[in-house]
């Protein structure tokens, strides 16, 4: 479903050249619950960004659903992100002036779906992530865990090919973090949605069905595991 082949990526951090990815190759199948682990600076966020079509590569290729996204046109990449990829960010990145409902509905509004469909799918998703009756609350009136649930709902509501989550539990306490992981794991099992995380949190690694360790821009290990 997603094929990453010999991807190299270098960027400038101030005046320092950082070799974030140094020939990474990876195959991700549909329905996987994959964790990309590694210390800070190992290249895990860069890899996630490359798969998510929000960062370019210096060399190598990325195929999503058989479509080459490296070197793709800006408009094509936007369409892929809009239709096929869901993002969950470390710091939730909800829009503070919007309610939980409106934050989730945003992803569907971009697709231009009819209001009735947006409403039905958004309410269903909010119920699925455990936020029934909270659709009218703004992020400031929600706990960190609830905010991340809204973010998960926003990523899932368009029924994407893959959900990319960049350290989704990093801003949550362990109990809430685990609840979020359980939520995503449940969705993965029920819907068969593919999840790819970047993390250095052992608990997230423990939840992963497959653990890919990165070190200095290279895949150090890639192992299939059972979920915790």
């Amino acid at each position, binding site marked *: 479903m997603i094929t990453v082949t010999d991807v190299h990526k270098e960027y400038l951090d101030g005046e320092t050249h950082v070799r974030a990815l140094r020939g990474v190759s990876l195959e991700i199948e549909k329905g996987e619950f994959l964790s990309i682990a590694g210390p800070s600076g190992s290249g895990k966020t860069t890899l996630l960004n490359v798969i998510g079509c929000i960062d370019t590569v210096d060399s190598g290729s990325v195929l999503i659903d058989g479509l080459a996204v490296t070197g793709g046109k800006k408009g094509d990449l*936007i369409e892929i992100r809009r239709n096929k990829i869901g993002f969950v960010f470390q710091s939730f*990145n909800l829009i503070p002036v919007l309610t939980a409902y409106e934050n989730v*509905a945003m*992803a569907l*509004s971009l697709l231009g779906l*009819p209001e009735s469909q947006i409403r039905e799918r958004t309410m269903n998703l909010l119920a699925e992530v455990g936020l029934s009756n909270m659709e009218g609350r703004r992020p400031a009136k929600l706990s960190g865990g609830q905010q991340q649930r809204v973010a998960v709902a*926003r990523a899932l509501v368009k029924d994407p090919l893959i959900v990319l989550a960049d350290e989704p539990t990093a801003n949550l306490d362990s109990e809430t973090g685990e609840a979020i992981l359980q939520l995503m794991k449940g969705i993965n099992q029920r819907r*068969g949605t593919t999840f790819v995380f970047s993390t250095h949190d052992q608990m997230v690694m423990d939840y992963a069905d497959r653990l890919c360790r990165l070190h200095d821009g290279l895949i150090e290990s890639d192992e299939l595991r059972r979920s915790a």
Partner: protein
Amino acid sequence: MASTETPPHGRSHRVRLQYFAMLALKNLFRYRRRTVVTASAVAFGVAIFVAMASLLNGLAAEGDRNLANYETSSAAITGAGYWRQREEYPLDILVENTGQILSVLDADGVAAAPRVAFRGELIVHYDPYPEDGSVYLALYGIDVERDPQVFRLAETVNEGRLPEPGEDGILISAWLAERLGAELSYPVTITTRTRDGFHQILDMDIVGIYQTPNPTVDRSQIYLPLDVVDTYLEMQGAVTAIHLALPEPVPGAADLGPVKEALERDREGVGGTGIELLSFAEMTEEFAAAVEIQDVAFNIVLVLLGFIAVVGISNTMLMAVLEREREIGMMRAIGMRDGEIRLMFALEAAAIGLLGAAAGLLLGARLVWYLVNHGIDYGTLLEGVEMDFRFADVLYGVWSVRTMFTAAVGAAMLAAVVALLPVRAILRREITESLRRH
């Protein structure tokens, strides 16, 4: 894996637009104080713009009215080429067939008043005047019967009366009377030249004092009966101009066609190619320069007000965009196009612009109301000004819905365009860079 069906393009576009509009409106309340401050700056600009436009339009309208009512009338028949030389007061470019022309115009029901304009020196002596003195002025022989049908001079006589036909009496302005120390029945001597260039001296008495709202007239013109002028200047019935009053809502709007046709019907009788029919626009084209100066001043004000709005709005939007850079990064990451982000911020800024414009219109309407009903007294300011201006001491504004509409729409559009500058800078950055911002 389920796929999302793509709805028809038009409908999807509308859904997105509605969402962006909703988001833009909600963001207005996100930075309430900043929104209020910026909208206030826009309101100030719009209000001043509307008031300035009202005053300048009032000035132009008043200028045209005062030209038509006291100097040019709606149209005039003169000797060919006279108007270009009129400030030299020539007595060799004349309308000879005055009687015939007036007959033609009378038959067509066109109000017409012949005048003879000439230059002369008005001399006064000590006792009854406070001191000896003289002044060069423009003198006008007017047909006392016909002139009030075309000009409004007679309505402005506030002491005495118009001189009667055959009377050696003159009408002077209150402005001149005050400077000369003149009163009704005081004698004056006028030295001038006849049509043939011979020196002539006229001994007259002041029979009336007028005060028009046209300072140029008040400061330079005195009037005496046309038949007296005809005799003293040996005009033999010729005049320098026949002024016409035509029905028109505003000066310059009259249709000269029927008058042209009437004159054409008796081409030989009225003077053939020796005369010309001048429209209000032709007679006042030299004042276009003054209007241009007004326009320049108006444009300078417009630029300054625009600058205030640009600085206010761009600053607000710059802060808003910078504070929301990570949010913008998130939106781009989940598939929002650059154009959609620009549209969202443009809508937000346009809404601020419209809010400000609405407040500005309310304030501006209040200012215009004051200007229309009370005006601004420029009297003291213009006391010593030696220039041609044709409005009275109190300058009144006029209502212009079009100007107010333009100001409001312009403010909203300007706000929307200005907002795009900071957004453009953010959209040039990589999405990943924006997502790292705190």
